[in-house]
């Protein structure tokens, strides 16, 4: 069978990891701010968030690029993971809030004097982490089970995912579900005993995000190369054939949908202590649509694509929202149009194309591309010749 990973790739992954996990944090921690090579706390924080976005983008691509399920509500799972982490962080504020009460400020504001029952276990970090996995996973399971069992496909599936995230967004805006309402959770102070406002804590969160991205990348690399991964891609290309090859396609879709939900939830949990806030805006439909654009720009159906796309689009956004604050939606839409019209395989596809072109000029054409072009161009006759040459049962008259 084909190899999962090539030597060049191992080297590239190793170098990227070295830079992201070791070099950049060192430049931030050990160089004086006056140095030209110093990396600011702001940048560290920004890149930590980009890495969380990149993980979210991978989860979108697992569904869209690999299984053909266009989920327009992936930020819902991201936000739910974030909310679960947020509940833990709110409990860690203790009595240091504005009202100096042992319960979160917004509850005091709503007239509560004691902690609601469902808030109690969130003082425990392991419990909160368990919920970070369980809540998005359970929601994805229930929604996926109903949708896939009823054979909801294509655009109908997409619309439902979007409706679900919109409904959840409206729900979380309400004060009476005791999840902070409009303002959500903010003013975090401590996480595992460390002050989240300190650069060192933010640096640790940045490293955790980078490492988590690496784990998700390698895990998905492995997953997509397994037979299960092949079945997922087969569902994308021909679901009927998959059914008539004896696979219960609904189960395979459910598996990947739950997995993507859990991955997005974990990314959200890492994201929240870095931005210092979680509110229902995070579930807004446009966020999920933006994540789709990241994947499209980077290159769908690859694992590098979503990472490149998430970082590129967000870096562009950071610049554009500062330079031209009113025009960001136009930039975003324009970028999407450009990619759809001219770069169907995204930036990764463009890079691959350039490499092939370069090899072509060097007189060393890419053998795979050539073979494909040949196969596409030739009629059946040479294949028949090949068939007889290999002693096939198909006789030539």
């Amino acid at each position, binding site marked *: *069978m084909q190899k999962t990973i090539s030597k060049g790739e191992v080297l590239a992954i190793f170098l990227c990891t070295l830079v992201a996990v070791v070099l950049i944090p060192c430049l931030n921690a050990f160089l004086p701010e006056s140095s030209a090579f110093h990396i600011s706390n702001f940048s560290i924080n920004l890149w930590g968030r980009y890495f969380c976005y990149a993980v979210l983008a991978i989860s979108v691509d697992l569904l869209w690029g690999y299984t053909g399920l266009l989920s327009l509500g992936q930020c819902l799972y991201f936000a739910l993971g974030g909310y679960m982490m947020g509940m833990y962080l709110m409990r860690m504020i203790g009595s240091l809030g504005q009202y100096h009460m042992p319960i979160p400020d917004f509850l005091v504001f709503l007239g509560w004097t004691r902690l609601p029952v469902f808030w109690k276990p969130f003082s425990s970090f392991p419990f909160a982490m368990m919920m970070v996995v369980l809540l998005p996973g359970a929601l994805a399971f229930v929604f996926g089970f109903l949708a896939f069992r009823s054979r909801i496909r294509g655009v109908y599936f997409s619309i439902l995912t979007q409706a679900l995230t919109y409904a959840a967004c409206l729900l979380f805006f309400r004060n009476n579900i005791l999840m902070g309402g409009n303002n959500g959770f903010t003013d975090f102070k401590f996480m595992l005993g460390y002050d989240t406002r300190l650069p060192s804590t933010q640096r640790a969160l940045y490293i955790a995000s980078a490492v988590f991205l690496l784990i998700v990348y390698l895990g998905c690399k492995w*997953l997509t190369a*397994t*037979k*299960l991964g*092949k*079945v997922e*891609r*087969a569902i*994308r*290309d*021909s679901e*009927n*054939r*998959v*059914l*008539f*090859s*004896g*696979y*219960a*396609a609904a*189960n*395979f879709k459910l*598996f990947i949908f739950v997995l993507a939900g859990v991955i997005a939830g974990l990314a959200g949990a890492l994201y929240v202590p870095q931005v210092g806030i979680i509110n229902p805006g995070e579930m807004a439909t446009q966020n999920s649509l933006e994540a789709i654009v990241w994947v499209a720009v980077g290159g769908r159906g690859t694992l590098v694509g979503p990472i490149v796309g998430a970082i590129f689009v967000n870096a562009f956004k950071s610049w554009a929202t500062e330079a031209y604050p009113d025009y960001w939606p136009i930039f975003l839409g324009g970028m999407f149009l450009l990619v759809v019209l001219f770069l169907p395989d995204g930036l990764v596809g463009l890079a691959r194309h350039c490499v092939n072109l370069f090899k072509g000029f060097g007189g060393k054409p890419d053998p795979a591309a050539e*073979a*494909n072009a040949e*196969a*596409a161009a*030739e*009629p*059946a*006759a040479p*294949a*028949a010749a*090949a*068939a*007889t*040459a*290999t*002693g*096939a*049962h*198909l*006789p*030539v*008259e």
Partner: protein
Amino acid sequence: MSAPHILTAEGVNKTFDGFKAINDLNFHMDEGELRTVIGPNGAGKTTFLDLITGRTKPDVGAIRFGSEGVDLIRKSEYEIYRLGIGRKFQTPTVYTDHTVFENLLLSLEGSRGVFATLFARVSPAQRARIREILQTIGLSAKEDAKAGSLAHGQKQWLEIGMLLAQNARLLLVDEPAAGMTDEETAKTGELLLSLVGKHSIIVIEHDMVFVRQIATKVTVLHQGHVLCEGTVDQVQNDERVIEVYLGRSKKH
């Protein structure tokens, strides 16, 4: 009545929005037989295959499979597949982004569950079996080519190969010669004939030259009902068949 029936359909009816696609259909087929089903457009040929494979369910009637007489109506598509019924679609339906080898690998008997496929490995026996099928369908040279890059006829053969890989007892082949050159059509016929005895095969076809090449027994469907059965010559000389194919306009 010597060989056991592999497929029995009795009193099957199926109505779509008032249109009787299948009307009191009775169909019997022996184990190891190659049967050709012909009929004008809208005669219910493809609906018949949909009913066998569980894609649609009949309003009334029974469809039984094998000497054990397993009731197919209560089964879902993948359960019917697991009983040993394979289907080739009218338009070639292969996994375009996978290689020819992977297409066969996914069709090969073996793990089908979510977690079983997660840790599945390709055994040497499986590899050998895939190579053997590649020889049979004449695509050995294309093992590592993407299925999407194959010519139309090659895709058709690959799909037949996928049915062989699943080791189906009953192959349902919907218009295998559609869009093929004469040479490719002839080869497809040879391929199907070479499978007779090892598998039971139902072929749906329009091309009468092709039907003549492969057919032992022909069933003519008309308005969802079996009009007549017999050899190619018997069927072609049957008054009723001539009428439904040629003389419909005369009658009205």
